[in-house]
């Protein structure tokens, strides 16, 4: 089964599936609408074991870090490299779109077509408001905000609502408690957790057999649904976001290759598996088991930083959202004729980073709402931005997930001790 899973998940198969899915989408075959349920079923299967896997992996990582005595150093290195990576990503996410928008002057026809697209997608007015809000009836429900939103007050509620961040925080605290308890009493359940982790990985490998089908079923319908006209109308945004994303997808390959002294083509081939899974599922956390397996077993990174960082990083550090928000803000400024000074650009980057944290635990179109915090300080219209972003979100969501996975993966590699990955180097010629 493992051999079959590895054979099916070869880079050539994954790339072929993506290309085939894009071709099907562009051709807009009528049968594509029937593929969506298959895709949803595939995502459901992949999601099934994510939370059990995290509940097993995070306590094991905590134990590993606390017992080895290097946990503090590793955490410090992870934090440093995380900050560096966020800074580099933010700079690229600002400079590339700004350069593209500066060489693509906005003419009246582009503005008209975008306006028509907006008008067709908007069903009503931009803002519905009460002139006298004191008299308006409030129907909003009370929601927890701030740090309280991350505290797993009820772990069972968090599990049942698929609230991965709270589950991760609980698992980290519980894992630390288990390590201390193990030292005091000598009683340990870490063996059982290792078994659970192995079971989860095995189940992931079974479902990995369905990856090509999942890619086709999940990628082709949204491409067909959007149609080529939308990309033509939103060409400036599409070019900027795609160009930035391609550059940022190349970056981790180069970083990992240099750090572990591997051939870039080999690294690309290895990280393609979690990336294609990200394209299909649009959910970085689902890719965590595959990414961990890739980093530890195939590329040869130290397991400790990987186990410590990847689950938390995939859940919390959303590089894709940073890039998306920064690009979208510059695009709306470009549409509305709003120039950006250097200070403005720094502020756009900083606000995009902060807004990305507001998307934690939020999936889909709802995850676009925090962009309002980036747009409004510059007087840019969230009401204009949102419908346009929603239109292209089926595709933008795939790219965001890819960036979330790809840009988190080099951080444990950079934070780990330099290690010659014998397993990986042996495997390299096979490609």
């Amino acid at each position, binding site marked *: 089964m493992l051999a079959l899973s590895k054979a099916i998940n070869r880079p050539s198969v994954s790339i072929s599936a993506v290309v085939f899915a894009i071709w099907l989408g562009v051709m807009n075959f009528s049968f594509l609408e029937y593929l969506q349920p298959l895709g949803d079923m595939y995502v459901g299967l992949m999601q099934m074991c994510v939370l059990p896997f995290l509940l097993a992996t995070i306590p094991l990582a905590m134990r590993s870090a606390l017992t080895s005595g290097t946990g503090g150093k590793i955490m410090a290195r992870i934090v440093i490299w995380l900050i560096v990576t966020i800074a580099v990503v933010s700079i690229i996410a600002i400079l590339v779109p700004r350069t593209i928008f500066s060489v693509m002057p906005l003419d009246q026809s582009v503005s008209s077509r975008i306006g*028509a697209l907006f*008008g067709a997608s908007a069903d009503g007015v931009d803002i*519905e*408001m009460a002139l006298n809000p004191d008299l308006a009836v409030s129907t909003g429900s009370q929601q927890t905000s701030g740090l309280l939103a991350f505290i797993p007050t009820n772990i069972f509620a968090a599990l049942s609502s698929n609230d991965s961040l709270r589950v991760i925080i609980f698992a980290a605290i519980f894992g630390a408690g288990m390590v201390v308890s193990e030292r005091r009493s000598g009683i340990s359940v870490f063996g059982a957790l290792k078994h659970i982790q192995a079971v989860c990985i095995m189940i992931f490998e079974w479902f990995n057999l369905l990856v090509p089908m999942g890619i086709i079923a999940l990628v082709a319908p949204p491409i067909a649904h959007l149609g080529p006209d939308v990309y033509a109308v939103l060409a400036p945004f599409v070019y900027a976001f795609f160009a930035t994303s391609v550059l940022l997808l190349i970056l981790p390959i180069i970083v990992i290759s240099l750090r572990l002294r591997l051939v870039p083509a080999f690294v690309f081939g290895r990280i393609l598996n979690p990336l294609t899974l990200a394209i299909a599922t649009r959910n970085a956390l689902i890719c965590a088991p595959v990414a961990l397996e890739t980093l530890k077993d195939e590329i040869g990174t130290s397991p400790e930083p990987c186990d410590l960082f990847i689950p938390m990083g995939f859940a919390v550090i959303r590089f894709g959202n940073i890039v998306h928000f920064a690009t979208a803000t510059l695009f709306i400024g470009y549409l509305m004729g709003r120039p950006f000074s250097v200070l403005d650009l720094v502020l756009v980057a900083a606000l995009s980073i902060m807004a990305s944290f507001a998307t934690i635990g939020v999936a889909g179109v709802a995850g676009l709402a925090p962009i309002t915090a980036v747009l409004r*300080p510059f007087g840019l*219209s969230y009401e204009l931005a949102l419908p346009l972003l929603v239109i292209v979100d089926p595709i933008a969501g795939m790219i965001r997930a890819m960036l979330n996975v790809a840009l988190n993966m080099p951080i444990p590699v950079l934070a780990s001790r330099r290690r010659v990955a014998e397993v990986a180097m042996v495997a390299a010629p096979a490609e």
Partner: protein
Amino acid sequence: MCLNGYFAAASCGFLKWRARSIALRICWLFALALILLGITAAISPSRSQELIQRPKDTEAIIARGTIRVAITKFDLPAFHWHTSNGGLRGPEIELVRRIGRLLKVGVEFIDDCPTFDSVIDAVDSGRADIGVSKLSQSPSRILHVRFSEPYLVLRQAFLFNRATIGTQAGGRPPEDVLRTFNGAIGVIAKSAYVGFAERNFPDAQIVEMQTWEDSIEALVNNRVDVLYRDEFEIRRVLKSNPALNVRFGSAAFTDDKSYLSFAICASCVRLQQFINYQIADNRVPFTLSGLLASQAAN
């Protein structure tokens, strides 16, 4: 002979008495007729006075055989418009014609009103019995004419310059700026929105434009920051010119509405009830989505 003479004398006396009695009765009848005539003559001036002073209502319209309807001389797409042959069409016109049919009178359109307020003036002055032209009820208008129940309720709305409002908001939601707007608001002159703007946005500079087209041009050329009208007209502008969506946004007020009604002469109580009944019974009700989708609106 003597007996014959006696009988002749008696017969002659009876005849005289009889003739006198008949003459007396005729005199009585004549006197009675004179009294009745006098009474009639006495009361007839007050009745005619009453007929003159009695308030105008359906009776007067039916007696005249025509209901006079004031409308704006400019078209209101999707509501009423002039056809190429000079006729009038539109849902408002159809509703008026239906009212005319049910009253069994003809409909005379007085379509020379240059503004919305002049439609109200035409009804107020008695030149027209009713007025219809997307007329909003407003406190000042209610002092001059009656209004029917609304045949359509629309939210009041803004068409605003996104950049201007965004800059003024300075990071706050645009609602905060719009709610207490103090910039230049464009409204159609002599429309209910002049009063609405004065009431709802006392700190704003209200710029009255002759036509809606002038208002849109003023917004596009940055002479005003927002336009104030009903949701239908705001959405119609963006629908008919989608390119404007990039520069201009729309906001509808959930708690301030335009009640579009017939203006009815101040004394026409029964006519008001009659029109209310027809509005309630209207087989083709006015809806925002229906009006926006209608070909006439585009």
